[in-house]
């Protein structure tokens, strides 16, 4: 009857979404009055147990095998589901990364758990979890109740505070044999597209450019501003469809959903499908020459004017401020 967090690692490093899930897991476990434990899957991952312990987990199940070196949704989810069936945790949290979503959904199906994905808050009511999550592209906020014994949720990135509390967990090594690896699926390759900037869904600040930039070349204005702010770079669909940035940059209904502390929209009109991906940002700054652009309806600061004048001036000011 504990709360589990399925922690996710990439190249031996815990992902930020998992640190957030662990921290919130610790808080919700104490609200529920149940032990807080964690699971980690991969190869050479038991060494991560100590780090997981920093976020309050008292016990870490390490499913550690050379055969799990690369991500395999069938094998990973089967191994976790077997462990869940053995120990029957009450609540399971997973960071809402793309792979976290897959694993959570598969495990929930295997163990018959209710699953609420992309949650932004949790309450406890009568000993049961109540999850808050946006739906219809952020146009409504729903509360989800559970009737299953096991209650699962994935946690939206950048919403829950990371909090180290210290501690040394007990490490339980869970056996896994080569025979359990599923040969139906192999990850052949990971092609890194790291830009040296933060990942969009994890970034605290995002600067996005739209059609107002006129040409792909002009994205350098957005990039320079982003680098001064330590921000990720995003794009509207119009900018992506024009070929100025690849699909991975797109924010919105057919792109990524982001919740940064600050979102700066440069030359973006604020179409409803764009807002669908960024309207839960804490602060929104818009730079647009059209005073009636819909983006201003939700911006905390609207700078009306020509981006080709405003952005370079802003960049200059930031350079002064940071040197």
């Amino acid at each position, binding site marked *: 009857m504990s709360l589990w967090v399925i922690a996710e690692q990439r190249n031996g490093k815990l992902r930020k979404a998992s640190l957030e899930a662990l921290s919130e897991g610790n808080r919700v476990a104490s609200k529920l009055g149940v032990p807080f434990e964690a699971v980690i899957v991969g190869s050479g991952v038991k060494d991560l147990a100590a780090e997981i312990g920093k976020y309050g987990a008292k016990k870490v199940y390490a499913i550690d095998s050379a055969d799990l070196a690369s*991500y395999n949704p*069938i094998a990973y989810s089967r191994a976790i589901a077997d462990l869940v069936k053995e120990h029957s945790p009450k609540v399971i949290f997973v960071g809402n*990364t*793309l*792979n976290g*979503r*897959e694993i959570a*959904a*598969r495990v*929930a*199906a295997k163990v*018959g758990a*209710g*699953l609420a*994905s*992309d949650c932004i808050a949790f309450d406890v009511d009568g000993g049961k979890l*109540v999850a808050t999550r946006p*739906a*219809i*592209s952020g*146009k*409504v906020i*729903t509360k*989800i*109740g*559970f*009737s299953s014994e096991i209650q699962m949720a994935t946690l939206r990135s950048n919403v829950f505070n990371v909090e180290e509390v210290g501690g040394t967990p007990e490490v339980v090594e869970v056996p896994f044999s080569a025979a359990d690896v*599923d040969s*139906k699926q*192999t990850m*052949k*390759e*990971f092609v*890194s*597209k*790291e830009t040296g900037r933060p*990942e*969009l869904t994890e970034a605290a*600040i995002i600067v996005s450019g739209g059609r107002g930039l006129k040409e792909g070349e002009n994205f350098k204005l957005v990039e320079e501003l982003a680098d001064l*702010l330590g921000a990720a770079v995003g794009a509207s669909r119009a900018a992506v469809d024009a070929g100025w940035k690849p699909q991975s940059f797109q924010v919105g*209904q*057919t*792109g990524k959903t982001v919740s940064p*502390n600050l979102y700066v929209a440069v030359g973006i009109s604020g179409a*409803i499908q764009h807002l669908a991906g960024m309207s*839960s940002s804490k*602060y929104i700054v818009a730079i647009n020459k059209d*005073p009636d652009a819909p983006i*201003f*309806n939700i*911006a*905390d*600061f*609207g700078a*009306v*004017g020509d981006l080709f004048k*405003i952005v370079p*001036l*802003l960049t200059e*000011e930031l350079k002064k401020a940071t040197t």
Partner: protein
Amino acid sequence: MKIAVFCKSVPDTETKVRLKGDRLDTSGIKYILNPYDEFAVEEAVRMKEAKKAEEIVAISMGPARAQEALRNALAIGADRAVLVTDDALDGSDTLATAKVLVKVLEKEGGDFDLLLFGQRAIDGDTWQVPSQVAALLDLPQATCTVALEVEPGSKAVATRLVEGGEEIHELTLPAVITCSKGLNEPRYPSLPNIMKAKKKPLTTYSLGDLGIDASEVGKNGSRTEVLSYELPPARGGGKKVEGEPEEVVAELVKFLKEEIKVI
């Protein structure tokens, strides 16, 4: 190959959501084929055009209006459609939905080589149904697919767009793929194809036809329930500053420094 394409009828992307108490007010909503499902249908049709697939079955679970979304899939080029509709399905969560979709696959012969889904339905936004169908059938899966190569009778190679890069997965068929923007550019159905779609077969099943007990679906068969809906806190427009660029920037810098404290 025989391909199943899963199609959901969802509110139009422009929809303004209104509430009636703490429930959704669905009156006046216009429904469309989920935009992500269009990528799935388009991908299937391209495989058929490349003579890699023989039959494309579009499958939906939902109220009678979902027929329209299915007709759209037929107009893009699916061969036939199946709709599961039954009042008892109301309130089904993703796992209950996945179980129904699995039953449809069985009913349709169980011999599908490829199960194509949208990456997410833009109403529930759960991204759960495809992975749950895959889990129930113990199938390999690739979500968020932006490139797909299929060797009929053998395997699929899917490129997944994930945080910070791309994962290339090799999957033995049958496999579950969820389709994302970037995979293809869905066509607009031509008028003759829209007309033709009206004559293509669309079969409707009730729960009884699929041998599903009403207690396994809907509210009773679901493990999660939407307790309430609320509108997100209204975001009024804040400050709007016009004037000389220098003045605007001075105000903006002050805002970034004093209110958001990012500099």
